[in-house]
């Protein structure tokens, strides 16, 4: 046995027990048996993720305030924001659909951005984040439900459908959503939950409890 305790990791997809080895920057450790990505050595994970998150937060506000697009019918122009669409659907009696869109396109990304900021901002400043377990769990739970990129594709498909019958004017939020999609993907790619857990509790990092 080595002097320091062997750090073990179990594959989340096949439960194979493997040794946790140090990686070169930018490298990825995959499971020997099933090929799942176990962890990555993300360079400057906390700095980069925080930068992307803050930028995404600003764009998220812009994307929700300004109209996505508007249509013009005989000089009559009607514009729509994301929340406006949710509200309109609710008033048309499609409460369930309206709620689904509200949760997946507004609540989940907002919660994701808030949790990331609350976790990473204190870590960046060298402080301990408040109730970090709660926010790490929120992040894990909410991650599959944030669907900004799918919404973006939905916007494009509706845009094409509308151009058959109407004059469509793209709004400011359309571009914001496009950029937001890229920034959220960048934040997700640079975030490493493993590093955050390690920073939060260096004592028991990857160690097997006796």
């Amino acid at each position: 046995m080595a002097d320091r305790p062997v750090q073990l990791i179990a594959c989340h997809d096949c439960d194979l027990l493997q040794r946790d080895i140090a990686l070169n920057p930018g490298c990825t450790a995959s499971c020997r048996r099933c090929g799942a990505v176990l962890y990555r050595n993300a360079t400057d994970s906390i700095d980069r993720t925080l930068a992307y998150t803050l930028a995404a937060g600003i764009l998220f506000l812009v994307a929700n305030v300004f109209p996505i697009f508007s249509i013009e019918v005989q000089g009559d122009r009607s514009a729509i924001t994301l929340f406006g669409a949710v509200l309109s659907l609710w008033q048309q009696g499609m409460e369930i659909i309206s709620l689904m869109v509200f949760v997946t396109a507004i609540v989940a990304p907002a919660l994701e951005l808030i949790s990331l900021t609350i976790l990473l901002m204190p870590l960046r400043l060298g402080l301990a984040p408040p109730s970090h377990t709660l926010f790490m769990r929120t992040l894990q739970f909410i991650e599959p439900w944030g669907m900004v990129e799918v919404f973006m594709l939905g916007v494009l498909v509706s845009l094409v459908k509308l151009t058959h019958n109407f004059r469509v004017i793209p709004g400011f939020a359309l571009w914001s959503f496009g950029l937001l999609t890229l920034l959220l993907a960048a934040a997700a790619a640079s975030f490493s939950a493993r590093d955050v857990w390690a920073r939060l509790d260096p004592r028991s990092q990857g160690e097997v409890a006796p």
Partner: protein
Amino acid sequence: MTRAPASAAAQGLCSCHVCQLVSRRPRFSSPAHCPRCGATLHFRKPGSIQRCWALVIAAYILYIPANALIMMETGSLITYRKDTIVSGVVHLWKTGSWMIATIVFIASVAIPLLKLFSLTLLLISVQRRSTWHPRQRTRLFRLLEGVGRWSMLDIYVVTLLAALVQLGSMATVKAGPAAIAFGAVVVLTMFATMQFDPRLIWDPLQKEDIHD
């Protein structure tokens, strides 16, 4: 005896589902908690197969009204159409929007069916403790995890169109009852995928039963 690669559970080790920390856990003891984050430890997701089956069956049932009922009603001065999911795709194709028709077909028809059939296949193979191509089946599961969310596409399109085109007699777009059923299928299959534990695919290789 040749030594099979050891799973953590076979060694009495349990990885935390929240923070991934591997810790020792007595097999049949009272509930244990992760020493780092305090989450309840499970060797496998509890009730994975039963819960997954329940959600998949519910999704199969709702898939019928999702395709049989009206997804979207569109009306203008000259035309009035009631479209199901499939007739909507066909209409898009016929009017020359091949690109959009293909995207909508993949998101609303191909992906939900792929998810339902694949989950059924995975569940049956796991219940029969099959050792058939575990690596391929794990890959299939990872594909389902990644691709499931794109089915929400049609819901967003209906929402945007219905909200925007509200100009009285000029034109109307209304979401139909199929939208609710289809939305439910998407959500149910997403929950089903979350409930499924891919580690069960690999357990028959260990020749040991692992619970909880």
